[in-house]
């Protein structure tokens, strides 16, 4: 039985108001299958796939440009998905390279220099959160952050010192999204009297916080504001649990990941964890539980031992003699995971195209050449067309070390944001990267 999202079943307390809407068929797709029948376009999704310790530019940059380029050695694992992403090379993160492995992502993702008082801290929000503020508010989770290596950290920031830590257990991610509170799109929400009670608790907490706020200094006040926005997000989630989500043909509960991913030969099975995360994220999006994700494969400076590697990744990037075949082999493993993600998303049909076609995904790292922490020749892959707004299958080579903020501005606009400019100080630009725009 398909039910409109606007049909609301409320389970209220003490025999209170219960509204049961008539089952309607308006949640089916329209004739051209590009939108919900009620006129809502299939949603756009934004994602980040991040790995640490950079690349080997000589093995990364492809030959040729435009649609006829040849994949470079490092990009070979992505061969089967070549038409579904674009490669952008020769751009530069224009901020001062003060902290190895951090200045790059701070400049790339926030378009701005680090905090003046702390060169390791984002001063502004990262792009995933800026986009989530616009496209993420209608889904159950504004964004989902996941990490693959043990101790993975995210660089998803709501603002200075306001991090969104990643979920590093695939099972915990599954439980969060597809646990008991999940309602299959098209099904009716189960009446649950405790939702209203939980809401009453959050109301009391919010009152408390607001009273406290009037006594605080400005920095603490801003920190508490952030906490309050988390409480509001939770309230919104409780409200959604009382609604009947519209049917989504592609939505299925994914295979439940294992509780634990024990080491294999003393090493964490990074690939298996990453794939379990990707499979869960794919359905989290197909079921419209979230529209923004970021996957933090491993941290900058991470010395995680990849299968087959003779040393930790970071150590190899510095100590292995050129041309660093062991580092190159690790990068092939990482690219295989990027490829898996693209394939998994592309395997989910949505309307006339696929989930991947409704995504814009930035795959990138913390620097270009890991050994020297360079910020020019930044590694940038953009997967998906964001509902036909981005060109894929091409290599754009920047002729003059253009500011990476141009690409970020393009991605934000492709997601439907109205932005005149992106970034701050030397990172700021009002020009987008027209070469990959449709």
């Amino acid at each position, binding site marked *: 039985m398909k039910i409109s999202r606007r049909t609301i079943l409320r389970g209220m*307390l*003490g025999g209170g108001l219960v509204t049961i809407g008539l089952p309607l068929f308006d949640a089916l797709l329209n004739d051209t299958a590009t939108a919900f029948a009620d006129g809502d376009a299939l949603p756009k999704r934004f994602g980040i796939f991040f790995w640490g310790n950079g690349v080997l530019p000589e093995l990364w940059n492809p030959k040729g440009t435009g649609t006829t380029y040849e994949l470079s050695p490092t990009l070979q694992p992505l061969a089967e998905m070549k038409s579904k992403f674009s490669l952008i090379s020769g751009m530069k993160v224009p901020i001062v390279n*003060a902290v*190895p492995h951090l*200045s790059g992502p701070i400049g790339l993702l926030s378009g701005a220099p680090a905090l003046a008082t*702390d060169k390791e801290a984002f001063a502004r929000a990262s792009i995933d959160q800026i986009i989530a503020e616009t496209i993420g508010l209608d889904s159950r*989770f*504004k964004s989902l*952050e996941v990490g693959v290596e*043990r*101790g993975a950290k995210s660089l998803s920031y*709501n603002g200075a*010192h*306001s*991090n969104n*830590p990643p979920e590093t257990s695939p099972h*915990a991610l599954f439980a*969060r999204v597809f646990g008991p509170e999940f309602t299959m799109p098209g099904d009716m929400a189960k009446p649950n*009297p405790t939702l209203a*009670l*939980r809401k*009453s*608790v*959050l109301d*009391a*907490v919010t009152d*408390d916080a607001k009273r*406290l706020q009037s*006594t*605080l*200094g400005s*920095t*603490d006040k801003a*920190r*508490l504001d*952030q*906490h309050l*926005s*988390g*409480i509001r*997000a*939770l309230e919104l*989630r409780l409200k959604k649990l009382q609604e009947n989500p519209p049917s989504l043909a592609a939505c299925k509960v994914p295979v439940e990941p294992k509780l634990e991913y024990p*080491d294999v030969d*003393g*090493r964490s099975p990074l690939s298996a964890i990453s794939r379990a995360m990707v499979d869960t994220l794919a359905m989290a999006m197909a079921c419209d539980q979230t529209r923004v994700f970021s996957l933090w494969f491993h941290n900058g400076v991470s*010395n*995680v*031992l990849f299968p087959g590697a*003779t*040393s*930790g990744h970071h*150590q190899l990037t*510095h*100590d292995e*003699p050129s041309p660093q075949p062991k580092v190159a082999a690790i990068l092939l493993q990482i690219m295989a995971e990027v490829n898996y993600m693209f394939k998994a998303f592309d395997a989910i049909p949505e309307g006339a195209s696929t989930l991947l076609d409704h995504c814009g995904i930035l795959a990138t790292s913390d620097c270009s050449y890991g*050994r*020297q*922490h*360079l910020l020019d020749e930044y590694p940038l892959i953009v997967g998906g067309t964001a509902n036909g707004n981005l060109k894929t299958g091409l290599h754009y080579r920047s002729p003059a070390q253009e500011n990476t903020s141009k690409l970020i501005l393009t991605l934000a606009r492709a997601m439907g944001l109205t932005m005149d400019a992106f970034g701050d100080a030397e990172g700021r630009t009002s020009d987008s990267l027209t070469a990959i725009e449709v």
Partner: protein
Amino acid sequence: MKYAAILLLLVTACDGEKAKLPVQSNAPPPVPSGPVGEAVGTLAAAQRLTATQYRNTVRDLFGKEVIVPSALEPDVATDGFDAVGSSTSTVSARGVEQYEAAAFAIGNQVIADPKLLSRVLTCKPAGITDEPCARAFVTTMGRRIFRRPVTAEETTKIAGVMATAATALGTFEKGVPYGIAAMLQSPQFLYRSISRADSGATYGGFALAARISFFLWNSTPDDALLDAAAAGKLASYEGVKPEVDRLLADPRARDGLRNFVREWLRLGQLDRLEKDAKLFTTYSVELGPMAREETLRLFEDFVFDREADIRDVLTTRHTFVTPKLASMYQLPAPTATGFAPVDLPEDSPRRGLLGHIALLALYSHPTSSSATLRGKFVREKLLCVQIPNPPVNVNTALPEPTPDAKTLRQRVQIHFADAACAACHKIMDPIGLGLEQFDSIGRFRTKENGATIDASGDLDGAKFNNPTELAEAIRNHRDFPPCLTRKVFQYATGMKPTDADDPTLKSLTDHFVKTGYRLKPLLAAVASSPAFRTMGAAH
């Protein structure tokens, strides 16, 4: 030009720390009375409870049987301390969800066990709703949870939440978790808040009670400390000192010390020690936490069991081992299971803290040791010299071992050939090379790639020939006592000290020296110091 400027900066940064002469220790004299240091306010900000503080607090509020769901918003270290990060970090949307889940999980455990419920609910409810009983519950538990008396408005609100829930769910008891959840999710509980109006003032009694207990216990104040605050006893040094001494005599002070050591030495990272299991057959996932426990037990022993000169933690032959650690230390196992005290043999090359697997393995690479990481650890954590990041665009590769250069000592010579690298590496690498007889996982060895390891060197003028003499040199280094004082002060206040704190730090260091380098008197002096008790500007 730019590069030259960076170079100059680096050389200055690392050359600024000139060689210091070691001083000899004195016999421990009695602790002088009176407050130590100036009444300069330490910077104040709302500190979020760390994950460990949350767990300890739940244990102390509801009983050790109550389990907190494993995941809570992770802590962020700033300047090396979670205690400092807790003054600046925020809570994410996922963190808010986790706090909600934890609060209800705690509340539901409490009502499921009559014994636990009777601890927090002292009145007998007369029916599904019983307003006086609900109010009594909120008044008692609210004071413990918020670490101050609850206001009439708060009591009414939370008792109302409980009544609504009780009515909907059918029993008074079923409303209790909702009252608990309302308090445990409140920012009044989750943050130790600082009122803007209080800037520059002495901490109010209740705020100071929390500040002292989270410093010394890493947990919430007990009723006695809150009573002392309510009675106005915490307004003066004379009133604070007995409470500080009482807290330090309580077993919970061991939790406090353990947490300080864990944060100071970054031992939390041992939970994800990355070692090549093929290379190190003794490696297993439990090794990191086990090695950390050894270090924490040694500190407990020094501070609480023997109240000894803490500098000797660097040179002692005493330690605590499991059968696994014993075998890695090539000792007979003193016990069949768990930990037992042991003295390393007199001729053992392994001495004190820097002979612990915890430090040796943590400050190494997954497959090889690192003179630089170990030296950096000693400089930054034990001697308080901040080592800048290597300049970007510099090739930091070490050459591979060759028949002519088999040892790390030979391979790191490249660090000294370039003035830009040498400025910092010359104060890190020689210390780490003194520990080269311990491999990446902390096992003793005399040879590397067949060549004999030379573990000699010089620490700011003190020559050493082996790790034992290096440990002596660090123990006697004049910067170690002020550095440890600084670390304790920073941990206690949750703020990086500024120049304004220098006189206080100097007085505290003098006190530490005068009291025989014992940590307990130092903890007491910091907790009762005017600086710790006075608030700076709210931020």
